[in-house]
């Protein structure tokens, strides 16, 4: 395999699942949600991601089932295209290019040949609802330029538009008015809430709208928490509305159940409210959903609801208001204080999650593994409250210990600090609170680090604080007559001339501790806690500090606020080299001596990878991100990559992830986008027949082995009937969904041919292999291969009337093709 030598910055999961309403499949088995540039298909029963639909080149902004074929899905994106997918196989069927940035997508059951999209044409804030005619064509890329204007000056959010009564009218809300456009009469009625201008603090701005599926009734949500049900709106004078009021804050989304008997609403209270019969007194609640409800959607079958939450979570809820599944993406908290940490045990990314929680996020499967409640207090969502913030976290002793620091500062002088130490419990597979230290320091804790050296029997933790001290905490025996226990106590308090301690760091072998006091770096012996030496460069306060690793363990690196990166030699106690670099993030790779530093300039962030022993960087990538990069981390790879190019060797053992200001999690990838697609198509083949239950693993594998034995036994016999599973044409026929299959006349010849016994009995096992290969290639979406398969089909057509010799010639042809593939380069050497 030849490496494609270009490193790209790619988004790696963690995208917003709650950006738009999730969509259920017609049978409620799957749920579709947008996720950045992709569409994710989740199973509602198992919460697993079944497919990721790749194809859009910008944010996906709308999803709708194809009303004429409920096995297909439309999606629209900022890239100006509408794509039609087969979601069961994860195949892109068609692409319609509209040309404008598409903000929302709506489909209607009775207008099958057109869809509705929200675009903005001229001014940035004026959005239009237009209908787009989707031309019928067999080609994959279709231009859909035929648009018809429906409504102007609408809100860009799809929550503010709803189609009602089988598409007889469309309701759109914005600011203080509701406009209803009747398609038959081609008239627009507009209803303005009159009190909006009169009262000073009236907050009855419209926020969302929903239409009753059976009756002429429009429900609108408002900023003051009211829900209004509008009726008789086809008459400008006789229109009437009624109010439902439970929410105390903005109604975020509304949805009617399929039959229209109940109305669902949600908001910042994190409570799903079901209004039965649309009456004020008859309501049911599903409380404690964890975070603000952003979207509500209802399955077409009517058995499930789902709510999207502001913490990047989708909850699937049964009709009887019982949460049945939770799909949790990466929680994007307002502030990431802890930075990116890797849990040594699970290799999960650990960072701030929900308020007061630490989230464990799996980078491989792009889902949250679990949440650890650190603060352990009820979260009251109120903008004015000053919350307890989780500021620092660190893992120690291969994930056996977790230290966290939380703080709450109401006023300048009142600081509440708490340090918690959590022990990993193998039985419960989770962290259990071991020691709680209130006010470990007098002032903010600036750094926290464990001594991770293996030779150290006793776990050691160092905290550095603005109060000018650093404290060493060790694990001691805390047993009493009741139980055996261990606990953490303070072992040593160090300080240096009352300077604020800003960073601390253990060397790789744990023998030295480096603590920076503003501009000065101090080196301490971890055995005796003696001050060994100090470095002072007078180059501003130390921002980052780290020891080199492996062969470079004699070096200590420090990045200062005056944009200087220094490297000290610990043996000579002298400055080895220094360079001017505005370092924002500095991360050592645990699996090599490399250190990654990200610098910030006015145009963007640049990455530098270097070894402490050489001042010349190994690798430089400019403009990895237009925004400020806040955090970065090296994640060890499970399977080492083999980049041959010298510049990319730093990525062989670890992968580098970084988090920008807007909280997008990015990484580097050398793979081309096409290559990234293949795993999903492979997945598709793997799970073609059976669900992979534990029984499958036991019985299925057993059966396979049996089959193989049987095959071996049969192979010895003269007459060999081809096994149906092994014939690709048949398996293809059986496993491809009917709606994507070509016509039967097309398949007939292939099918018949495949049943014919070839004269070469020995190739019986080869042929399936070959075709498997073909199929694998076929699933790659390159044009060349498509042409090839078509050709193959053509030849089959010709074959139909002729004899088996052609079949033989075909196998010969394959033989020839194989020969062509053989490397003849040795000939040149002759």
């Amino acid at each position, binding site marked *: 395999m030849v490496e494609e030598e270009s490193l790209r910055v790619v988004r790696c999961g963690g995208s917003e699942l709650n950006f738009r309403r999730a969509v259920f499949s017609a049978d409620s088995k799957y749920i579709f949600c947008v996720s950045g540039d992709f569409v994710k298909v989740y199973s509602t029963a198992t919460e697993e991601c079944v497919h990721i639909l790749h194809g859009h080149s910008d944010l996906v902004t709308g999803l709708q089932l194809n009303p004429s074929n409920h096995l297909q899905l439309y999606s629209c994106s900022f890239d100006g295209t509408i794509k039609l997918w087969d979601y069961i196989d994860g195949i892109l069927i068609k692409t319609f290019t509209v040309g404008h940035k598409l903000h929302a997508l709506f489909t209607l059951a009775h207008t099958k040949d057109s869809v509705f999209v929200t675009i903005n044409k001229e001014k940035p804030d004026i959005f239009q609802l237009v209908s787009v005619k989707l031309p019928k064509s067999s080609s994959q890329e279709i231009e859909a330029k035929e648009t018809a204007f429906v409504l102007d000056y609408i809100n860009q959010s799809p929550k503010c538009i709803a189609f009602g*009564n089988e598409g*007889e009218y469309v309701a759109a809300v914005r600011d203080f008015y509701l406009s209803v456009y009747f398609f038959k009469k081609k008239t627009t009625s507009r209803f303005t809430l009159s009190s909006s201008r009169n009262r000073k603090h009236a907050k009855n701005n419209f926020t969302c709208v929903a239409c009753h599926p*059976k*009756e*002429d009734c429009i429900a609108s949500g408002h900023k003051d928490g009211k829900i209004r*049900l509008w*009726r*008789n709106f*086809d008459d400008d*004078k*006789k*229109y*009437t*509305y*009624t*109010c439902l009021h439970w929410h*105390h804050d903005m109604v975020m989304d509304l949805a009617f159940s399929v039959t229209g008997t109940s109305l669902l609403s949600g908001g910042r209270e994190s409570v799903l409210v079901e209004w039965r019969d649309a*009456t*004020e*007194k*008859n309501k049911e609640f599903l409380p404690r959903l964890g975070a603000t409800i952003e979207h509500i959607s209802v399955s077409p079958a009517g058995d499930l609801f789902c709510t999207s939450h502001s913490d990047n979570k989708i909850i699937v809820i049964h009709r009887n208001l019982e949460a049945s599944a939770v799909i949790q993406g990466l929680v994007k908290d307002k502030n990431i204080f802890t930075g990116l940490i890797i849990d040594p045990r699970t290799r999960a990314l650990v960072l701030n999650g929900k308020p007061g929680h630490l989230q464990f996020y799996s980078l491989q499967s792009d889902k949250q593994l679990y949440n650890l409640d650190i603060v352990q207090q009820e979260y009251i969502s109120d903008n004015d409250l000053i919350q307890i913030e989780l500021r620092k976290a660190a893992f120690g002793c291969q994930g056996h210990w977790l230290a966290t620091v939380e703080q709450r500062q109401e006023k300048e002088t009142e600081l509440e600090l708490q340090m918690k130490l959590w022990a990993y419990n193998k039985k419960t597979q989770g962290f259990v609170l071991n020691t709680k230290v209130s006010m470990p320091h007098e002032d903010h804790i600036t750094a926290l680090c464990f001594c991770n050296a293996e030779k150290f029997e006793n776990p050691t933790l160092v905290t550095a604080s603005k109060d000018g001290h650093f404290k060493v905490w060790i694990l001691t025996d805390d047993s009493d007559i009741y139980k055996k226990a261990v606990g953490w106590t303070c072992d040593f308090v160090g300080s240096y001339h009352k300077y604020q301690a800003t960073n601390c760091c253990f060397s790789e072998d744990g023998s030295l501790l480096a603590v920076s006091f503003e501009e000065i770096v101090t080196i301490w012996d971890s055995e005796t806690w003696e001050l060994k030496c100090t470095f002072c460069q007078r180059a501003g306060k130390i921002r980052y500090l780290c020891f080199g690793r492996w062969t470079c363990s004699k070096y200590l690196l420090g990045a200062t606020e005056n944009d200087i990166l220094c490297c000290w030699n610990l043996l000579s106690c002298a400055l080895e080299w220094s360079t001017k670099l505005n370092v924002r993030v500095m991360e050592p790779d645990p699996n090599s001596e490399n250190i990654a530093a990200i610098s910030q300039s006015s145009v963007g962030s640049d990455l530098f990878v270097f070894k402490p022993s050489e001042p010349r960087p190994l690798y430089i990538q400019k403009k990895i991100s237009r925004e400020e990069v806040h955090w970065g981390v090296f994640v060890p790879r499970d399977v080492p990559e083999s980049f041959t190019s010298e510049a990319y060797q730093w990525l062989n053992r670890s992968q580098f992830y970084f988090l920008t200001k807007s909280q997008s999690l990015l990484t580097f990838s050398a793979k081309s986008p096409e290559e990234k697609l293949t795993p999903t198509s492979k997945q598709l083949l793997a799970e073609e027949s059976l669900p992979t239950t534990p029984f499958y693993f036991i019985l299925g594998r057993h059966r396979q082995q049996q089959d193989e034995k049987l095959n071996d036994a049969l192979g010895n016999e003269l007459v060999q009937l081809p096994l149906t599973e092994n014939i690709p044409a048949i398996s293809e026929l059986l496993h491809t969904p009917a709606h994507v299959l070509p016509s039967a006349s097309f398949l007939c010849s292939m099918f018949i041919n495949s049943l014919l016994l070839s004269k070469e009995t020995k190739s019986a096992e080869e042929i399936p292999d070959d075709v498997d290969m073909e199929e694998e290639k076929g699933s790659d979406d390159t044009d060349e291969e498509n042409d090839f398969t078509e050709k193959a089909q053509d030849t089959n057509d010709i074959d139909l009337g002729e004899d088996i010799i052609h079949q033989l010639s075909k196998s010969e042809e394959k033989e020839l093709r194989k020969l062509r593939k053989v490397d003849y380069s040795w000939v040149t050497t002759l």
Partner: protein
Amino acid sequence: MDAFGGPIWSMTASPSGSQLLIGCEDGSVKLFQITSDKIQFERNFDRQKSRILSLSWHPSGTHIAAGSIDYISVFDVKSGSATHKMIVDRRYMGVSKRKCIIWGVTFLSDGTVISVDSAGKVQFWDSATGTLVKSHLIANADVQSIAVSDQEDSFVVGTAEGTVFHFQLVSVTSNSNEKQWVRTKPFQHHTHDVRAVAHSPTALISGGTDTHLVIRPLMEKVEVKNYDAALRKITFPHRRLISCSKKRHLLLFQFAHHLELWRLGSTVATGKNGDILPLSKNADHLLQLKTKGPENIICSSISPCGSWIACSTASRFFLYRLSYERDSISLQRVPKMPAFLRSALQILFSEDSTKLFVASNQGSLHIIQLSEGCFKHLHTFQPQSETVEAMCLLAVSPDGNWLAASGTSAGVRIYGLKELKPHCTVPAYNFPVTALGIAPNTNNLVIAHSDQQVFEYSIPDKQYTEWSRAIQKQGFHHLWLQRDTPITHISFHPKRPMHILLHDAYMFCIIDKSLPLPNDKTLLYNPLSLTNESDVIRRRTAHAFKISKKYKPLLFMELLDERTLVAVERPLDDIIAQLPPPIKKKKFGT
């Protein structure tokens, strides 16, 4: 007449008006025949277990619905038997112990029965099958009243929480004929129970324990959005409840079940404008007259000389003679009042206290001569036209020659008291009269109407005066026409013939006929700052209407003598303080 069924809880006339239904304590529903001269018992319906609290006729008159406790019965009027018994769910937010009282039922022409009950439900029943069609739980407390519009496309209910809910018949989809009842808007204008509601073609009217009458116009039915389309809240009756004896400085207050007589205090001190002077003599509560029985006092009056008090209830008329001996006071009831005087609507004494004018509810006007301790019936003016319309406003000229009387809708009639015969009729006007007054000397009759128009009519000349024509030609100031409450009293200054004194509940006004009339551009209400301005400006901006809003709500204002004016305020807080506490409601965030 006695219905022989214990207390009567409900009563309703048939759509044709010839029959009357009553519901009694013992559970019986009785049908009475109404003829022109009497009410005759016709039949009993099947007796129910408990009291009948509400009754409603089917518009065709063939069936009736009766709301009892825990169930509703539907009767066939012909057979008198109950065809259906519809049992109402007792449940009230999980508590099932309390009985469910059906406070109101309404029979619609399509056979639907709407019931409101003490569990806070509004329920729709099919009277043909006796089944519940739909139920709306709208309140945590009782729903006490219901009223349906004539078109039967909307109705209104009032709850004990003070909320009034509007229900409308709305088509399900625009292209189908199927319709459904939908609760639309709630109105919270009351603090206490809403005991009665009414549905006019253009407005919802509600009233209850908190003493307010609220008229909420239906915007979609109002053609023009003018001031008539505004919400109105009426707190005080649009009539005089206080009369005054100018000679003795006495005030007679009329309450629902008693009268109170007070003597005004006086002062000898003097002061500047705006000063509050100390009283040298406090006001005295002279006497309190209580009526017997449950009947309310309809009207009352004290004679200008202070020696007579007359009051009337629905069935009796009382006349008292007061005699004063220094500080003590003695009261003597005049016996043997004639029967025709009972249930008077308005009582008036002549200026010299020798004559008593009584407007009976039959439409006739009685004149009684009073002398020391006895009385003599002088004359009765019979109603002129065929239509029996009671007079409810009276005014007598200070010289005692003229009597003006007005009914609720017909015009003002003027009688000559010397000849004891009708003098003339003031040209008819569309709006009812709210106050009358005859000026001394000129005998000009000043008439205030409910649309805030004021007319001046010269009785001797039998025509409107020049000033009245002038103001009608120019029109009143728009702010004057937009006032909320009608003028309830008109009086005159004996020395200043150009002045007319009038007041409503929120302002007191002196109309100076000698000054120019205001037009829409001038300020109607005299701002206080103007008093500080120079005389020139004041003179230039002066106009005929001098308005004071210092006292409100103003129940009564009268000139005692040339230099004294008495005003009676009734603060709303005092009334509210006497009310029972409203139903406690949890308010979010408290």
